[in-house]
């Protein structure tokens, strides 16, 4: 699956074309550029999975667009990357040619940018779609294959069932086939087997006995041997099976069917041509059938059948290998031997009756495959050699007890094919074919011979004896040589036996020459310094002879060597080196007959020497010996070690730094880079390997190449240090700024031969610097240059001005800007300045320098003018266009400007001079009535300048706010305040104020919004609408701030003002609410309570986008503040009253008599409803004793008495006048800001009734004193109220 493809590669040799295309596309994609075909191909290789499309020009030098297209197609890139040709060629042939070569589309130059963008997008989308689809299709195919497999297996199992064999047979056949095929694929490449074919054949193998369906049961399941006739019928299962498979040709997968057909038909053919049905011979038999045949054979042998019992693995293998069960290709038999072990394991695991799992996958194949691979049998060569040798060759594996007569030129050695175990057959061979005299020697030492051969680690051993030759009828001498194979593993005992006919030669050859030679060698050996050694080529390198130099080298004499080391050279080696030395000997001898080793030896005195051992193999007496020379190389070794460490150090340093270090060998023009290149850029530095190469194709941004070339040239010329900065493309398609620094290295003659340097990533640094620079140069409000930048740039130009070029400096001052600021406010003034600077920008060219050098002063510098007229024309245009600006909006102060012009070189050659003169000219313009431009004229301006010196400069005048102030506004505010202050009804007052303000400022609506307690919703509480404007107040109740997008309060600035000349600049959520009301602009002021935002007062303007003036803002602010004070007070009051009401209701509804009295005077301050009900004449202000008891003074027993000092008391009181008993409670409270006494009397009359009857009501004053609790208060005369007396008990 492809990753994100978002890079477009533009290939064109003209910068202008690339720039145009880049401009069109760089918003949505990363862009890579290439200048020529080579660079393009480099980038394609690099970024092939990130490029979405390539835009390719046709006409380019060196490699034109068609050639690039061809190469893309040839290398298969077109499948992933579509190409759009961009060409100015109009002809039909070129179109045809482009499409023929594989282009996806063609665009003609000059082109329409929008068209290009759409076409590119379409192509990219289409391509992505295609790639995606390909993946989908592959998935589908895969699942289809799987279902096919399941079906065929099921089918085959059904067939198996019928022939009384279990379903495991098919499974095993499949697995054997698969394993064997893998081995064949590795080792017999001529069959051209790959993974896919192996899969197919394996599946097809399941069908091999499909034809058995057509065989009658009586034959298929006959327990005994088949008669010839029955056998013939049995044989037809091959052809009948094919016929059935033919009918399945609709299945679709032709390859599979072909394999199935072949296997079915030919799996009983024989290598020697004596099989059935077609008697094919050798490799005419399709390999699939050969392999399936072996698998079938093996399985038949190792499982029970109706006609026989199962054989052991070893027996089956031996039978197959030696031709007792079918005849197979020798190559396949080799492979079979290799995988034999796996067959055995599988046969056991998947034996009938056992089924490891329901799925058909054999377990970890990886293990098996690995083992097979390492076997490394180079079959063809082997067999070639055998053919060449033309001698009998036998392979034996003593561990598995398997032997194989691989090659036999004649049948003299046939006894070795007799089956059973190796020992048995060898015995048979000896008994039948070896000369009687030699038999015992050969036979009895066989065990010994073989045993010692392996134990001692010998590689080769020979013996000679006579063997009967049938063709001549007599015995011939043979040298039988035993050769060890599989030498890496000491536990495997595999070997080969080869018999060479040595004719009449005698095995024993000891001539005088030999003796003499030997003597000479010994003498040599004794006298050579260093060591000379003859050792046997066995596992321990046993020394047979050693020179005296060995003693000198190691410090041990002969006796000591024999005693301590048993003459074993390997034992004298440093323990760590032994294994490696032995392995190296084995390895090197496989390739030739010489060895070269290095190892350490510990001397007698304890020190270690490094030894270089060079030797050669010589054969003597049938055994192999190594003749070696040993040399002490200790010193050399140390030196090399130090060098290695030093290099390693360098490598570490190179790797640890983040920078990319490179080295340029100038003589060979090769550049090598540290690994950091790939780490940083994400790809290896291919195109950057040579200086020449970099010139034409590399990842460098084409525009920056001159900088790099300059660097290269400098270094090549001999400069000792140089640096350059340029952009390099990174892996994701972006360009990164890099700084390269390099130093040169010289040869003895002082010529530069090398350069070493560093590449640093300065991308972020650069962009930061750029940003800061730009910021520092810019005037914040208008985005033009600020004064310092202006100065710098002008000076820069003036320095490199060419003669004949004219430069003009224009200073522009906005006339009467003060007035505008004062009339309309600073915010308005800023808006005006911004518009002015935009206008100026539009009127001048890109090369002109434009800046704002003062509050309302601008400067434009025009470089490279051919004549003055140009500048003056521009100035004229500028003055004119000012008049058009803000036409209609500023009828009170129409906008205009004055311009002063000075020219370089006539009026000055430096910034300061020009400035002074232009300023002077500006002053003149102002004096002439403004709204014009004046060019400096040295003839008369110089003089008058001095005269007017102090007042001569029009610049630097402060733009002060006039102190006139808003007299109108203040009057209005005073009026408003008075209304509110005196208002009886605050709400009415507010309404009339809104109306007044609305009319005063001629707005569409004036209104107030108030927030709820949590500031989550706001409600339009007051609204005044101008004539013809629809009221909105009903729709704006409880508007949620969330609906407004949540940030409504941020619209108000730090002064609480929300200044909105155009609501289309507001967030969408807010516009949605405002637009339906017909609003175009708004001015709002926040209402605050203790600093908290509680709502706002606002004006709406529905007719147009309106710029609100300072006057209006001030007025509105005051109104808002005033209103907020009064409104808030009103609301607070309402709240309090509501609260009080609530409390009152609570008190009134108590079922007790509750009243409040002054603690000193007993005047009542509050009477609750129930009290009023029982004593209607009671009123606030009356004394309680009088109102309730008719007394003239406070009652003695009164809970309220001394309430301040005594504790809260509860008493039971009888009230004669009202005729009620109460349980009275008095408490000291604060009431309306003063101390008071709260009396609560619970009605207990009903509880007291009985008591009352006992207690005679007392008269006034005296009478018997009742008991304390029944104390009755004397009832004083109360105001006669019949109703109360009616209560009954008054006497």
């Amino acid at each position: 699956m492809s990753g994100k493809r978002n890079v477009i590669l533009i290939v064109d040799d003209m910068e202008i074309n690339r720039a145009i295309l880049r401009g069109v596309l760089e918003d949505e994609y990363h862009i890579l550029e290439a200048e020529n075909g080579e660079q393009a191909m480099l980038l394609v290789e690099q970024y092939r999975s990130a490029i979405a499309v390539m835009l390719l020009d046709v006409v380019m030098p060196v490699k034109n667009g068609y050639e690039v297209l061809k190469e893309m197609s040839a290398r298969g890139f077109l499948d992933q990357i579509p190409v759009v040709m961009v060409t100015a060629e109009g002809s039909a042939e070129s179109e045809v040619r482009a499409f023929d070569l594989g282009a996806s589309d063609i665009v003609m130059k000059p082109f329409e940018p929008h068209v290009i963008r759409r076409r590119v997008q379409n192509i990219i989308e289409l391509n992505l779609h295609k790639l995606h689809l390909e993946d989908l299709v592959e998935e589908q195919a895969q699942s289809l294959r799987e279902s096919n497999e399941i079906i065929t297996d099921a089918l085959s199992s059904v067939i198996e069932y019928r022939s009384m064999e279990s379903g495991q047979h098919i499974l095993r056949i499949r697995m054997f086939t698969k394993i064997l095929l893998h081995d064949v694929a590795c080792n017999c490449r001529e069959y051209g087997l790959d993974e896919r074919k192996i899969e197919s054949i394996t599946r097809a193998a399941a069908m091999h006995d499909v034809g058995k369906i057509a065989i009658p049961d009586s034959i298929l399941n006959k327990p005994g041997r088949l008669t010839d006739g029955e056998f013939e019928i049995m044989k037809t299962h091959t052809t009948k099976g094919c016929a059935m498979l033919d009918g399945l040709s609709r299945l679709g997968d032709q390859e599979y069917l072909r394999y199935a057909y072949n296997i079915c038909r030919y799996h009983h053919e024989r290598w020697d041509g004596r099989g059935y049905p077609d008697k094919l011979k050798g490799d005419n038999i399709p390999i699939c059938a050969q392999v399936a045949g072996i698998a079938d054979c093996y399985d038949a042998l190792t499982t029970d059948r109706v006609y026989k019992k199962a054989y052991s693995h070893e027996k089956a293998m031996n039978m197959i290998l030696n031709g007792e069960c079918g005849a197979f290709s020798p190559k396949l038999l080799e492979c079979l031997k290799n995988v034999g072990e796996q067959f055995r394991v599988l046969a056991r695991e998947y034996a009938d009756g056992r089924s490891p799992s329901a799925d058909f996958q054999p377990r970890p194949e990886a293990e098996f495959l690995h083992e097979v691979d390492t076997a490394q049998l180079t079959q063809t060569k082997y067999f070639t050699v055998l053919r060449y040798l033309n001698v009998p060759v036998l392979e034996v594996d003593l561990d598995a007890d398997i032997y194989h007569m691989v090659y036999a030129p004649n049948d003299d050695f046939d006894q070795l094919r007799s089956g059973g175990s190796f020992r048995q057959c060898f015995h048979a061979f000896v008994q039948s074919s070896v000369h009687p005299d030699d038999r015992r020697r050969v036979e009895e030492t066989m065990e010994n011979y073989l045993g010692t051969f392996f134990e001692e680690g010998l590689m080769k051993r020979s013996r000679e004896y006579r063997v009967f030759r049938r063709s001549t009828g007599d015995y011939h001498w043979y040298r039988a040589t035993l050769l060890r194979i599989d030498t890496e593993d000491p536990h495997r005992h595999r070997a080969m036996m080869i018999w060479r006919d040595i004719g009449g030669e005698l095995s024993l050859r000891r001539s005088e020459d030999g003796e003499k030679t030997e003597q000479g060698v010994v003498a040599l050996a004794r006298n050579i310094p260093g060591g000379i050694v003859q050792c046997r080529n066995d596992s321990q390198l046993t020394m047979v002879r050693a020179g005296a130099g060995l003693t000198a080298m190691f410090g041990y004499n002969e006796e000591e060597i024999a005693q301590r080391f048993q003459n074993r050279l390997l034992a004298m080696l440093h323990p760590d080196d032994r294994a490696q030395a032995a392995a190296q000997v084995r390895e090197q001898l496989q390739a030739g007959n010489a060895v070269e080793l290095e190892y350490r030896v510990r001397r007698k005195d304890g020190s270690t020497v490094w030894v270089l051992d060079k030797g050669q193999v010589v054969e003597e007496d049938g055994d192999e010996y190594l003749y070696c020379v040993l040399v002490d190389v200790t010193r050399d070794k140390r030196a090399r070690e130090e060098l290695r460490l030093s290099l390693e150090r360098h490598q570490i340093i190179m790797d640890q730094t983040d920078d990319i270090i490179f080295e340029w060998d100038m003589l060979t023009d090769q550049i090598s880079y540290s690994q950091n290149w790939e780490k940083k850029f994400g790809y290896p530095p291919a195109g950057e390997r040579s200086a020449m190469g970099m010139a034409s194709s590399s990842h460098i941004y084409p525009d920056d190449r001159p900088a790099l070339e300059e660097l290269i040239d400098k270094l090549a010329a001999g400069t000792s240090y140089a640096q350059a900065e340029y952009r390099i493309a990174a892996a994701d398609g972006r360009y990164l700024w890099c700084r390269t620094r390099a130093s040169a290295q010289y040869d003895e003659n002082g010529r530069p031969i090398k350069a070493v340097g560093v590449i640093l990533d300065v991308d972020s640094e650069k962009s930061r610097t750029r940003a800061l620079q730009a910021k520092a140069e810019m005037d914040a409000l208008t985005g033009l240059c600020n004064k310092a930048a202006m100065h710098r740039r002008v000076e820069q130009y003036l320095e490199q001005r060419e003669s004949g070029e004219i430069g003009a400096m224009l200073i522009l001052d906005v006339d009467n800007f003060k007035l505008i600021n004062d009339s309309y406010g600073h915010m308005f003034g800023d808006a005006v300045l911004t518009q002015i600077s935009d206008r100026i920008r539009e009127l001048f060219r890109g090369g002109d320098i434009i800046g704002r050098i003062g509050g309302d002063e601008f400067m434009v510098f025009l470089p490279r003018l051919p004549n003055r007229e140009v500048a003056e024309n521009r100035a004229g245009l500028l003055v004119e266009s000012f008049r058009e600006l803000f036409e209609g909006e500023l009828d009170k102060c129409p906008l205009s400007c004055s311009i002063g012009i000075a020219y370089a070189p006539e009026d000055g050659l430096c910034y300061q001079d020009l400035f002074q003169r232009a300023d002077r000219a500006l002053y003149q313009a102002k004096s002439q009535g403004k709204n014009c431009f004046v060019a400096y004229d040295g003839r008369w301006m110089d003089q008058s300048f001095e005269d007017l010196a102090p007042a001569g400069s029009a610049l630097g005048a402060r733009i002060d706010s006039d102190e006139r102030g808003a007299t109108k506004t203040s009057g209005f505010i005073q009026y408003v305040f008075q209304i509110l202050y005196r208002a009886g009804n605050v709400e009415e007052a507010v309404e009339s104020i809104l109306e007044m303000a609305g009319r005063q400022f001629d707005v569409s609506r004036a209104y107030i919004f108030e927030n709820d307690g949590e500031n989550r919703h706001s409600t339009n509480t007051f609204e005044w609408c101008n004539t013809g404007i629809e009221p909105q107040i009903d729709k704006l109740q409880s508007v949620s701030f969330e609906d407004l997008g949540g940030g409504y309060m941020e619209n108000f600035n730090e002064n609480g003002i929300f200044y909105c000349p155009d609501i289309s600049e507001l967030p969408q959520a807010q516009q949605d609410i405002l637009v339906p009301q017909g609003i175009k602009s708004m001015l709002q002021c926040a209402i605050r309570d203790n600093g908290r935002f509680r709502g706002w007062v606002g004006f709406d303007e529905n007719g147009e986008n309106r710029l609100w003036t300072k006057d209006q803002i001030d007025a509105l602010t005051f109104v808002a503040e005033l209103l907020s004070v009064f409104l808030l007070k009103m609301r607070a009051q309402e709240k309090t009253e509501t609260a009080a009401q609530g409390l009152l209701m609570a008190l009134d509804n108590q079922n007790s008599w509750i009243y409040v009295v002054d603690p000193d005077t007993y005047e009542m301050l509050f009477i609750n409803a129930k009290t009023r009900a029982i004593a209607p004449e009671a009123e606030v202000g009356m004394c309680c004793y009088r109102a309730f008891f008719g007394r003239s003074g406070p009652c003695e027993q009164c809970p309220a008495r001394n309430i301040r000092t005594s504790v809260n008391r509860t008493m039971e009181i009888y009230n004669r006048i009202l005729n009620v008993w109460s349980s009275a409670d008095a408490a000291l409270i604060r009431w309306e800001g003063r101390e008071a006494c709260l009396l609560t009397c619970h009605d207990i009359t009903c509880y007291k009734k009985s008591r009352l009857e006992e207690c005679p009501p007392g008269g006034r004053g005296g009478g018997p004193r009742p008991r304390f609790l029944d104390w009755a208060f004397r009832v004083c005369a109360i105001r006669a109220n019949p109703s109360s007396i009616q209560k009954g008990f008054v006497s």
Partner: protein
Amino acid sequence: MSNSRLIDALTELGADTEGALRRFMNNEAFYERFLLKFMDDKTFDAIAPALEAGDAEGGFMAAHTLKGIAGNLGFTALYEAVCVLVEFLRAGDLDGARASYAPAEAAYRAVTALLAGGGN
């Protein structure tokens, strides 16, 4: 009426500045930059020597390139004149090419003079 004297002058001369501006994303500064760069462009100068030397191939490459640039920048007159030149050279007809060189040169000079004059 644009904001650049240069562009206006070109339009007066008959150039398709509108089309060219569209190509430059309506960015006049961008367009002007390349207009000014055209003054330094050496492609045209390569045509005459090639014609003299009888090198139709080389002449074709240069003329073809020039055609592209002229088209992009909207120099209609130059474009058309060069087109004629290109077709002759494509066919290898050196005589025809030489004959049609003059009008191409005239158009080229007109444009470069205007550019150098800065729009006056």
